């Protein structure tokens, strides 16, 4: 009996040791290949890490579903936003001609692009849906230029791992990894359903990330920052969402 117990003890011990070192190795490999989300350390971070790692391994290059013109929602909906401030109103009165998108961080040519210049970049459009974490959704045509083109234009360095984006809305900033930042459907949009992008839907500039929930598609973007590390932004959780209790990765 004690012989069996001892053998069991040894095998269990070896098994546990192998399991633990296997996990440690897996964690190191996962970090090496960008499979750990920045909010992995929060209370329910383990589930988030599994989701993010699984989707980055299996669906890294997947495309968001696209729809036909006839499927565009006749009744789109946008949550109301807090008043955007006097400066926004001043720019709005000037038809946003003075709106600029700052690009900084790990780029060879930091600077800012006026709205008109962004509109002169290669044009891309998609009919995709905005799905809110609350459960509602609509389909619209989004017109803009790929984020990857703007990153190229600013000369993003090869070691960039995340793009942080900010809005005129205070305390609303987000970030995405390069799988989404360089994704052909990730657009800096200025048009919707064949016209200008209405202010209610994020005009003059909204970053559309169609493979994630609506809250990652931040309205009124003013600044992009390329970085290799999110630790120094806010509380180091990747974006304002985890600071407010929501997951950083919203591809679910």
């Amino acid at each position: 009996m004690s012989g069996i117990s001892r053998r069991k003890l040894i095998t269990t011990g070896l098994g546990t040791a192998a399991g633990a070192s296997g996990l440690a190795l897996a964690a190191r490999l996962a970090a090496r290949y960008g499979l750990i989300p920045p909010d992995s350390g929060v209370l329910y971070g383990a589930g988030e890490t599994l989701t993010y790692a699984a989707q980055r391994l299996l669906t890294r290059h997947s495309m968001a579903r696209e729809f036909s013109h006839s499927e565009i929602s006749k009744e789109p909906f946008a949550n109301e936003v807090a008043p955007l401030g006097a400066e926004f109103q001043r720019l709005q009165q000037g038809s946003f001609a003075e709106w600029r998108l700052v690009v900084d961080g790990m780029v060879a040519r930091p600077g800012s692009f006026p709205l008109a210049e962004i509109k002169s970049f290669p044009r891309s459009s998609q009919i995709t849906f905005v799905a809110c974490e609350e459960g509602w959704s609509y389909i619209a045509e989004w017109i803009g230029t790929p984020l990857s083109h703007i990153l190229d234009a600013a000369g993003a360095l090869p070691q960039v791992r995340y793009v942080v984006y900010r809005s005129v809305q205070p305390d609303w900033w987000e970030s995405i990894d390069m799988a989404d930042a360089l994704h052909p459907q990730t657009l800096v949009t200025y048009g919707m359903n064949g016209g200008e992008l209405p202010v209610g839907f994020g005009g003059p500039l909204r970053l559309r990330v169609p493979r994630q929930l609506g809250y990652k598609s931040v309205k009124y973007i003013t600044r992009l920052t390329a970085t290799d590390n999110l630790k120094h932004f806010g509380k180091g959780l990747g974006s304002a969402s985890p600071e407010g209790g929501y997951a950083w990765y919203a591809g679910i």
Partner: protein
Amino acid sequence: MSSRSAAPVHSGAAMGAISPTADAVAGRGSARARASAEGQPRHAALVRITHWLIALSFLALLVTGAEILLSHPRFYWGETGNVNMRPLFRLPVPSSRDMVPTGYGYVLPDANGWSRYLHFEAAWVAVLTGFAYLLFGLFQGHFRRNLFPTFSDLSPKRLATTLASHLRFRRPGAEEAWTYNVVQRLTYLIVVFVLFPLIIWTGLALSPTVEGAFPAAVEILGGRQSARTLHFFVTILLVLFVLIHIVMVSRAGFRKRVGAMITGRVFQSKEKA
């Protein structure tokens, strides 16, 4: 080696390795043979562990799912749906978001953040546990021995008798302490092989990344909002199952049956059979 350190290791081994094997041996002789009270557990260790893990994760999924639903207690059919569109139906409850017209003059506290985190974490626990259970059921004969009904069980007369005694919530006899009757078997099979896969499928269909990678998985269901509505309906069926399950366990002797699902042993009880 002190007996204190040996004891947990041994019990760990009994839970993990010995009992399923013993269970399989018991089943090989005759599928319906009553296991003897000494040694053979009523439920294999893996069945017991996965039962409680699933129970725990289901509770977490249900509570957090309800919280998430409160932010938009309206359902639609098709690809899209929002407050500007006609719902298929709406639940008569207040919402945690002020833009949803509910008819109530107040808004509930918003609990979506932690609910979403926990919903997906509990979903991982449920799916991984379910996968372990599936492998066990397939390769250790659990499905064949304990869940698949025999041919004679499926005769209309036998089915009708068992169903009638269920509908009257009749207490099962002592012979049922060691096996499942045909209605139980069919119900568990439906839960394991129909409802569980459906709840996972309709849930994954709501993931923007997954639906991009597997668009057919959403289109077959009728669209993203249809998938959300179906996710709700399947939840209702699962909740109904859990409620009936708890009632039936109570009728059969709550402490005895729950005890068997925890320890694996069937206690000779003083409850009237």
